[in-house]
């Protein structure tokens, strides 16, 4: 029994970090541009296609180089999306336009991936493959990579946001765009850099989850939804809350199968979401909405 509980905690933490990263990437855009990026699911998917389909399997590049190139491509793709799509969408008074606009962007990306890479799911053979044994416990190496990379990424992001000039500019823009502009910050460029960084996080998520979902057009649907839930449960628009929300959902839905039939575990994330919205709209971190 203990073995199962520990196993579930490990997988719950790993998936929790995935949800947390999804929450972080869309929170960054929400904070900087005030937009809901519905297309983030297809950015995650796109990173997996570019990494696996183009660099590793297509060009036969080594994994480390493929990762770097994918993240570079993702940064510039995010930057371009911000310049071409987000900036005009920001000028509309309602976020409905950004929801519609980014939904359409997601649909267009779906068809582009299908045309470029075909419809069949595929994977990168033996990528993050293997297990780690500690006594009777067996962990998939994928989970270990997810946890380690996610922790490193969150630390790096905090350092970037608090200790670098562009990071501080991003935080200023998130807090008050007019004041940031008066202080001489190039708000427009800051938003595009933020979108680029958000896109890089999408890239990291897309690469990390390949062993779990393979590479297909539907690979990021579930984590995309639960990433939204993570953000709201933790405290919408608040990065530490989002991380906690992701871990809370991941571990809870993983352990809950010890008490209820496992086919109900997906409901847990959404019940948590509903409960938080009703009785604690600021999220478990009580962040002001």
């Amino acid at each position: 029994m203990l073995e199962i509980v520990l196993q579930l905690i490990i997988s719950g933490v790993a998936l929790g970090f995935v949800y947390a990263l999804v929450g972080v990437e869309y929170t960054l855009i929400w904070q900087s541009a005030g937009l809901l990026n519905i297309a983030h699911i297809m950015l995650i998917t796109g990173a997996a296609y570019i990494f696996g389909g183009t660099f590793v399997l297509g060009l036969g590049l080594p994994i480390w180089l493929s990762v770097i190139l994918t993240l570079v491509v993702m940064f510039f793709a995010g930057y371009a999306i911000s310049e071409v799509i987000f900036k005009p969408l920001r000028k509309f008074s309602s976020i409905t336009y950004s929801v519609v606009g980014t939904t359409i962007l997601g649909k267009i990306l779906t068809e582009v991936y299908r045309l470029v890479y075909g419809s069949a799911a595929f994977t990168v053979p033996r990528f993050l493959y293997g297990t780690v044994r500690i006594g009777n416990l067996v962990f998939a190496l994928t989970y270990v990579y997810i946890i380690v990379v996610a922790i490193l990424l969150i630390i790096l992001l905090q350092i970037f946001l608090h200790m670098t000039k562009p990071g501080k500019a991003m935080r200023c823009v998130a807090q008050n765009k007019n004041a940031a502009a008066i202080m001489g910050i190039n708000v427009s460029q800051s938003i595009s850099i933020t979108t680029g960084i958000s896109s890089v996080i999408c890239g990291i998520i897309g690469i990390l989850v390949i062993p779990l979902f393979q590479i297909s057009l539907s690979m990021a649907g579930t984590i995309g939804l639960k990433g939204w839930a993570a953000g709201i449960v933790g405290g919408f628009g608040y990065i530490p809350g989002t991380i906690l929300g992701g871990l809370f959902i991941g571990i809870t839905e993983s352990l809950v199968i010890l008490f209820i039939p496992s086919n109900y575990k997906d409901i847990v994330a959404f019940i948590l979401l509903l409960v938080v919205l009703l009785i604690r709209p600021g999220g478990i971190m009580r962040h002001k909405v």
Partner: protein
Amino acid sequence: MKKVGKSPKRIAALLLAVMMLLGLAACGGSVSSTPAADAGSSSSTAASTGGTDGSAAAPSGDPIKIGLSAILTGPAAMEGEHVRNGVEMAFAEKNAAGGVLGRPLELITLDDQKDNTVMVTVANNLVSQGVCSVIGPSTSTGGLAVAQVYIDAKIPFICEGGSPNLRKSVLEDGNEWMFMCRPNDTLHAQASADYIMQEMDIKKAGMLYVNNDFGQGAMSIIKETLEAGGVEFVTETYNAGDADVSGQILSLKSQDIECFIFWADSDYVLVARQAYELGMDMPIVASPGATVQAQRDMCEPEWIEGYIISTDVDYASTEPHVKNFVDNYEAMYNMEADLHASAGYTASQLLFAAIEQAGSDDPIAIRDALATLKNVETPNDPQASVDSAGCFIHQANLVIIDDNKTPIVQKVIRVEVD
């Protein structure tokens, strides 16, 4: 209130327009009519690979219009591509061999996106185009969704779904316009359960199944058979799209099961990988996924080695009804045939035989012919014969996956046609 600029408006309008165009292309706009002349581009290939001598008289007269509802866009488009390939190959071969009743065959293909609502739209569209019969949709729920359209239009259709609910629709709801060209899911589940009872000396088995019609149907059949044979049976389930099933697998493992059974749909690779990683070193009986090339390619050999699977077709068979199809398919499309391809090809052959038996392309006559059609040689069944529930295929192949991911047939299972 912020002023809405002209430029964003233009961009949004442009995006919406592109979206609408894509939507149209995905839905009604993807009509890819493949008339006899069209098929000619591939029919010459088919003639040379399909075993025809090319001396058959060219078909003439009005074309016989047949509709195809296939998944051509979206995440499951690969399934639809195989189905369309199988159907188009059958049409090309038949047209090259003189057509049906001396007339050319015309295929009207529409994309149903694996969406039940779109499938109904597609069905109405095909009816309005005057087709005499339809192949598809390829899902069981889709088959049930479009049934009323074809009942009202009095047009027969051959669904590729395998749910027991399709049989129920024919037997209990009087849906006499629907026929099926793949083995019913119950056949695979029953064959797997029978194999466990006959070949394995076990006292306890555990099953992990996807929580949908496909998984639940198989679970109830396997449970009934195993428990009737005195084998203790425990289950765990998961939802399609779950990223982790390790808890369920470990739960089954901790209950000292001697055989692990899993019934997975799109998550097949995930379950196979996690079962391997968690050391399920016992006989594993699984749903047909590992016999489908697209799924098998994503599995490492060690994950699926030794899997016992009941599947539609033994693609390595040297029997002419399979070998010709497999070889021609590979030559024509440069890819391995899978169960979706053979389903499309089989459905086409059944319709051709029915039209020939009916002697006309009158939909009612074709339905009546389908309802009595016997012994049609198809890749799925060398003696495809309709039963009282409209199902044509009564054969499955029990295979074991070897260390090179190749399915090796252990036995061919046939059930009596009622």
